[in-house]
């Protein structure tokens, strides 16, 4: 799998992502600069976590206007795979490539903790290695992860199976009102969604930080394995 990771000023989880991609695919990803206007030959582009432009104004707002995002959009139109994690998800919503927006966490505090995610749709290129309703653990670390979207779009997302992951308890029970299991207060406990063609995925938690048993588990690996498999096909 030929992967590229975009670095914006303020990005800080590009190394974590590179380690995860290399460990699963056996191939080191290319690091792309926010001002690049030419993309190398790639299967996957990752917008990693961090605080692009300090998260000032709104998370992801300024990065969404970077020169490279024009290329990323074209890449998506050509059918390339795009994964946005945390700040990357925020950037994808700011560009409109994914619907909705991420507001401040309901607690109004930055949250850094493990959460459990239930796989809602196992038919996407990002989730194929799981079964529907599988539960896995992932660290989350963000101040603005409270997903909102207007009612009509929500209905569409739910109807078309575009909710990829939901925050849940360790046994898979989803309770959107419960701060323990839906820590940031996201609508319908939505943690990750995909685009209508299923090729663009945005999610708040960090599967890339759980791919090594030394760091506490390998729960995040199936996501990257799914992508490797999708690319081969």
């Amino acid at each position, binding site marked *: 799998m030929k992967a590229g990771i975009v670095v914006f*000023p*303020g990005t800080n989880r590009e190394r974590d992502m590179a380690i*995860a991609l290399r460990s699963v695919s056996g191939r080191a990803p290319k690091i792309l600069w926010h001002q690049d206007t030419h993309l190398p030959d790639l299967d996957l582009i990752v917008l990693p976590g961090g*605080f692009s432009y300090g998260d000032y104004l709104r998370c992801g707002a300024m990065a969404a206007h970077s020169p490279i995002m024009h290329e990323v959009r074209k890449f998506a139109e050509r059918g390339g795979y795009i994964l946005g994690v945390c700040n990357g998800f925020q950037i994808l919503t700011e560009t409109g490539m994914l619907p909705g927006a991420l507001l401040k966490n309901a607690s109004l*505090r930055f949250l*850094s903790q493990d959460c459990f995610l239930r796989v809602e749709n196992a038919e996407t290129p990002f989730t194929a290695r799981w079964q529907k309703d599988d539960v896995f653990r992932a660290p989350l670390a963000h101040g603005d992860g409270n997903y909102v979207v207007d009612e009509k779009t929500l209905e569409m997302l739910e109807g078309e199976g575009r909710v990829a992951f939901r925050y849940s308890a360790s046994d898979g029970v989803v309770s959107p009102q419960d701060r323990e299991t839906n820590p940031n207060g996201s609508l319908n406990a939505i943690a990750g969604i995909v685009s209508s063609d299923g090729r663009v995925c945005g999610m708040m938690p960090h599967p890339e930080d759980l791919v090594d048993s030394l760091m506490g588990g390998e729960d995040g690996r199936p996501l990257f394995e799914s992508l490797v498999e999708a690319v081969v096909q």
Partner: protein
Amino acid sequence: MSSKQKVVDAALARQFGLSGEEYDQVLIIMGRVPNLTELGVFSVMWSEHCSYKSSRKWLRTLPTTAPWVIHGPGENAGVVDIGEGLAAIFKMESHNHPSFIEPYQGAATGVGGILRDVFTMGARPVANLNALRFGSPENPRTRQIVDGVVRGIGGYGNCVGVPTVGGEVNFHPAYDGNPLVNAMTVGVARKDRIFLSAAAGIGNPVVYVGSKTGRDGIHGATMSSAEFDENALAKRPTVQVGDPFVEKLLIEACLELMATDAIIAIQDMGAAGLTSSSVEMAGKGNVGIDLDLDSVPQREPDMTAYEMMLSESQERMLMVLRPDRTEQARAIFEKWELDFAVIGQLTDTGRIVVRHKGAIEADIPLAPLADEAPIYDRPVATLPAPEPIGPVHDPVGLEQALITLISCPDLASRAWIWNQYDSTVGGQTAQRPGGADAAIVRVEDTSIGLALTTDCTPRYCYANPRSGGAQAVAEAWRNITATGATPLAVTDNLNFANPEKPEIMAQFVAAIEGMGEACRVLDFPVVSGNVSLYNETRNPDGSTRAILPTPAIGGLGMLADVEKHVGMAIPRSGVLILIGETKGHLGQSLWLREILGRETGDAPDVDLRAERRNGDFVREQIISGKVAACHDVSDGGILVAVAEMIMAGGEGCELEPPQSGMRPEAYWFGEDQGRYLLAVNSDGQELLHEAGMRGIPSRLMGKIGGGGLTLPSGATISIPRLRAANAAFFPSLMGA
């Protein structure tokens, strides 16, 4: 303020914090009356913060060398060899006063400052820790300060992408008007690419990078060296605001430039900004320096030379570059959208000459500015004997006492705090906060693990500064050992009250003696640190209230094979074994404070030889793979330590009866030092035997299993009950 307007005399010098004698010395060095800018330079360079005038004599007594120490005190941070051609670079620094005035920005800029001390030496920062002391939870201002400090540390560290992996928190009324915020950063660099601050090469350009200069925090260095009065809040000095985003860019740009051979010397602009960085770089290199302030990037119009030289604007660095690499360097900083300006050059005059708008604004000989800085041998009083412990009885029983202890402010779960710190960014955090006695961070692309901790027990230091100083070092060493790592070196942050008072100076001197002795016996040298004095509050009636003496210790250890480390979570089965001698020392214990409401008695004795022998044994057992989990016994004693292992692992334990001939509360809650709880998967006989052979006190504590903590009486405290008691304090204090 313009250099031309104010008349410089002894009275003004006093306002600037220079004593009459110090001002006389300035007059001799200058051979004339200094102008305002020059006076400002002297006042900050000779402030307690920059000159260590009260503490230097005593700091020199600390051991600072070992075969693995590459750079000890004297550089921006300490450097130790961790193998594979790599070095760990680390330091701790305080931001106490700014954090009282504006908790968020004070704490945030504290983190920013210590990060710069570390990456200025060529290291990529890999971990942050923070040692915090707050006032009484009952004081309404405490809550605001906790809120702002925690948000500030998180706000800065999370944004720059350095995981915050550990720290400590205490509450005590002595910190009501003077909280302590000590931040520690650890970085990793290649051993052959460590950057120092001594300038060299006459004619070489002096380059300013980072953020623009504004009128931030002018005279911060002198402020942090003066005791606080109630007016401090009203005075509202220009608070420094941090920009972690720019710091992140500065880290990346500096590391990119450091991969080339462009840099001859580099120094962050910390306290006293441009003044201290330029004076220190030139002074260390025995060269002169000419600065042209017209070239300094400025955020505000009409800044004077005085303001620019004393500004404490954040996220700035000063470098001396090879002239033929200047343009290459400029391109890197422009790529990262940072200011870059050549603001001067090195000279052979031995003087610092500052020009602004065509006029010479300062012209000072560097050697006397550094060499003739005052050093004081302040009077030291005799320490009072600790208050007798008084009669001890147990009014509540074990079960209730345990619940009270694990819910008290000093032992309650800190999850509320660490859940606001990104502890996983970087993908190398093998033990997050709460998982082990020291945080474990793997060095990327190697099998090396770093073990990191901060420790100090201020109530011990108050009762007995010498034991307290030794205990702080011993506990850091023990916490590292309890993960299986080998302790390498410490950084310290010596927080004390007014050194001009002999009784405070006595605390300071005794604490350093205790620290020094512990460092020597444990082979745990001090490689960097910071002193913060005048931590006291002046009451409206003129009296003062001193903080508890708080020599915070930051410890660093390493594992050659990080996979071999253990955490503190109790495993599924096996037994718990106690290593170390239990004497039942209740003086200054949390049990005494929380159950009998007294802070009396002597601090526990620290037997350094036993400490070393027990620790070396424990580490050996862990590395040989025989131990499933380990936790040191400290605050709260054995029963609290067992409860903590149970809460972390979610498995119960049935405890054996106490040693005969000892009162139960003394056995279970005494705070004797040098002890560890080890969980082993077998019946433990082999380990007990091994310990016995070596003459190490050991004892079977209990059998793992059951639904909770089962006392010898048969009563069981369930795990959910333990967890609920432990979790409540912070959310209820902070209102969520």
